[in-house]
């Protein structure tokens, strides 16, 4: 036992925990990421240059360094080039790579064991096969999620989905059992059969889930990969893999639950592909309820130009329409006219947590204009005009008033306290939660129909023309 390596692994594990803790608070989050990365560096270096007996350079160092350098270059380029709004795709892709690595390790180890012909006990078999199955499901699932978020893959639902999935899951266990008990070359075959069924399961698992629910799925697959890494920890009696893997497995699971809660979804509903998905298509047309006042860009432009204080509430529609840049333009224009303009950031506006921060920061809106929900809510009653851009659920008063509403209890932006409300969306269709919004029927509220980007462009030229 080489103590230095063990100590390095301990440092790595502690780095992961402290890093993750710091990532949980906005102020220290970025440093936390660095702390976790430092822990990883220590652990990797200890693996390369220490072994059971002392300082010792690992075999095939050339190949290893080659792969690491290649991975570093490619990974950095991808991560640096990706559009801010495409972050979930990127995370999903990298997550899949981790799952793939876990599966590949299992494949090599098993092949190796078959060659040496050793008898394999359960203690060795379980981590290998669990790593294979979980890693494969995570890999395939992440790829599907990636494709869906990219728009390359659509939703695909099939009847009796849950039963079929349960059946496939059972088949995996049967195949794993046969892998353990098979003899000679059969065991290799059964191993690959297990893998193939795991691939099928990965496909069936993620395909039916609505595109809008993908962040939840990615978070779940993330915790899967953590468990797969922990299997590697068992296999090599490697504490840092075990600890890092278990940490992500546990934190990832809780994160998934917390995330679904923040979105007012249940994990079960997400997994069986219920609701949620219809937000992509636009959902059902609005149900019964009062009359709606349509307004024209000219009127809105006048209203805003002569207002003292305007708050912009961005939502998913702003992201889809890619209207963040023109929105920033409008903001600057109004500020020039002496109007006080702010953005009200709801934590789950959009399709991933923090979506709006990322989006608006990208179009170089300054940070101190982005006000979090709790801080801006008291400001609405001193606001002349609220411009709701492609947001719907996050301004739905049903969350406060209607106990039967699926979003009841979700904290919302209290836009109805403002003097005037203008909503920019294309139709009366509902948002992610698929429910009607009483705000649109409020006498103070005017609807400016049309694509968010086009509507805002019109507003910009009208304000300029005034």
């Amino acid at each position, binding site marked *: 036992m080489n103590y230095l390596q063990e100590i390095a692994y301990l440092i790595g594990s502690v780095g992961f925990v402290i890093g993750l803790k710091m990532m949980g608070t906005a102020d220290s989050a970025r440093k936390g990421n660095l702390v976790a990365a430092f822990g990883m560096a220590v652990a990797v270096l200890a693996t390369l240059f220490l072994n059971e007996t002392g300082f010792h350079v690992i075999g095939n160092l050339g190949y290893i360094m080659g*792969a690491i350098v290649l991975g570093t270059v490619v990974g950095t380029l991808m991560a640096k080039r990706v559009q801010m709004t495409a972050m979930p795709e990127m995370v999903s892709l990298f997550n899949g*790579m981790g799952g793939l690595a876990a599966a*590949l390790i299992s494949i090599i180890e098993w092949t190796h064991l078959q060659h040496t012909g050793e008898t394999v006990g359960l203690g060795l078999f379980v981590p290998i096969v669990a790593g294979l199955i979980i890693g494969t499901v995570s890999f395939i699932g992440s790829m599907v999620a990636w494709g869906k978020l990219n728009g390359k893959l659509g939703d695909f639902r099939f009847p009796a989905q849950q039963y079929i999935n349960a059946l496939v899951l059972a088949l995996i266990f049967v195949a794993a059992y046969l892998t353990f008990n098979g003899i000679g070359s059969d065991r290799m075959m059964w191993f690959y059969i297990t893998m193939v069924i795991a691939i099928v399961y990965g496909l069936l698992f993620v395909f039916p889930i609505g595109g809008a629910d993908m962040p939840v799925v990615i978070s779940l697959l993330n915790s899967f990969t953590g468990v797969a890494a922990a299997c*590697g920890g068992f296999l090599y009696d490697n504490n840092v893999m075990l600890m890092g893997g*278990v940490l992500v497995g546990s934190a990832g699971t809780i994160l998934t639950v917390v995330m679904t809660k923040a979105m007012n979804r249940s994990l079960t509903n997400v997994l069986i592909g219920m609701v949620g998905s219809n937000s992509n298509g636009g959902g059902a047309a609005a149900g019964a309820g009062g009359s709606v006042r349509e307004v024209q860009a000219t009127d809105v432009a006048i209203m805003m130009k002569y207002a003292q204080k305007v708050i912009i509430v961005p939502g998913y529609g702003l992201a889809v329409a890619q209207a963040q840049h023109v929105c920033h333009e409008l903001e600057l224009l109004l500020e020039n006219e002496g109007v006080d303009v702010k953005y009200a950031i709801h*934590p789950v506006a959009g399709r991933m947590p923090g979506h709006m*921060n990322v989006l608006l920061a990208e179009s170089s809106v300054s940070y101190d204009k982005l006000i979090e929900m709790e801080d801006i809510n008291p400001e609405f009653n001193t606001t002349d005009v609220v411009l709701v851009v492609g947001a719907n659920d996050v301004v739905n008063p049903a969350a406060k008033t209607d106990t039967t509403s699926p979003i009841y209890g979700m904290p919302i932006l209290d836009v109805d306290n403002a003097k005037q409300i203008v909503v920019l969306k294309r139709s009366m269709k509902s948002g992610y939660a698929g429910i009607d919004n009483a705000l649109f029927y409020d006498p103070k509220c005017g609807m400016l129909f049309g694509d968010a980007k086009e509507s805002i462009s019109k507003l910009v030229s009208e304000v300029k023309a005034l």
Partner: protein
Amino acid sequence: MNTVIQFIGENITYFYLIILMIFVGIELIGHVPSVLHTPLMSGANAIHGVVVIGAIIVLGHAESTDYFSLVIGFVGVFVGTLNVIGGFVVTDRMLEMFKKKPKK
């Protein structure tokens, strides 16, 4: 029953470590504000890239004639590194967007 007891008993430290780490994971995430969920997911994603160590070990112990292990191991280290590096870089980029606001 006896085998289960024996298994747990022999690996009791693992059980302690795993259970405690599960508690730590649960407690760490329980109170996080929702705007940070995406970067947190991404950060956790980078951490499980620790699986790359397994790939390094495999590749490091492969015989120089064992082309199967060499190739698969190389791919393993490559994709594992992608997970680690890509994960941390992407997280850093995201968190840049959440820079601390100047105090009011």
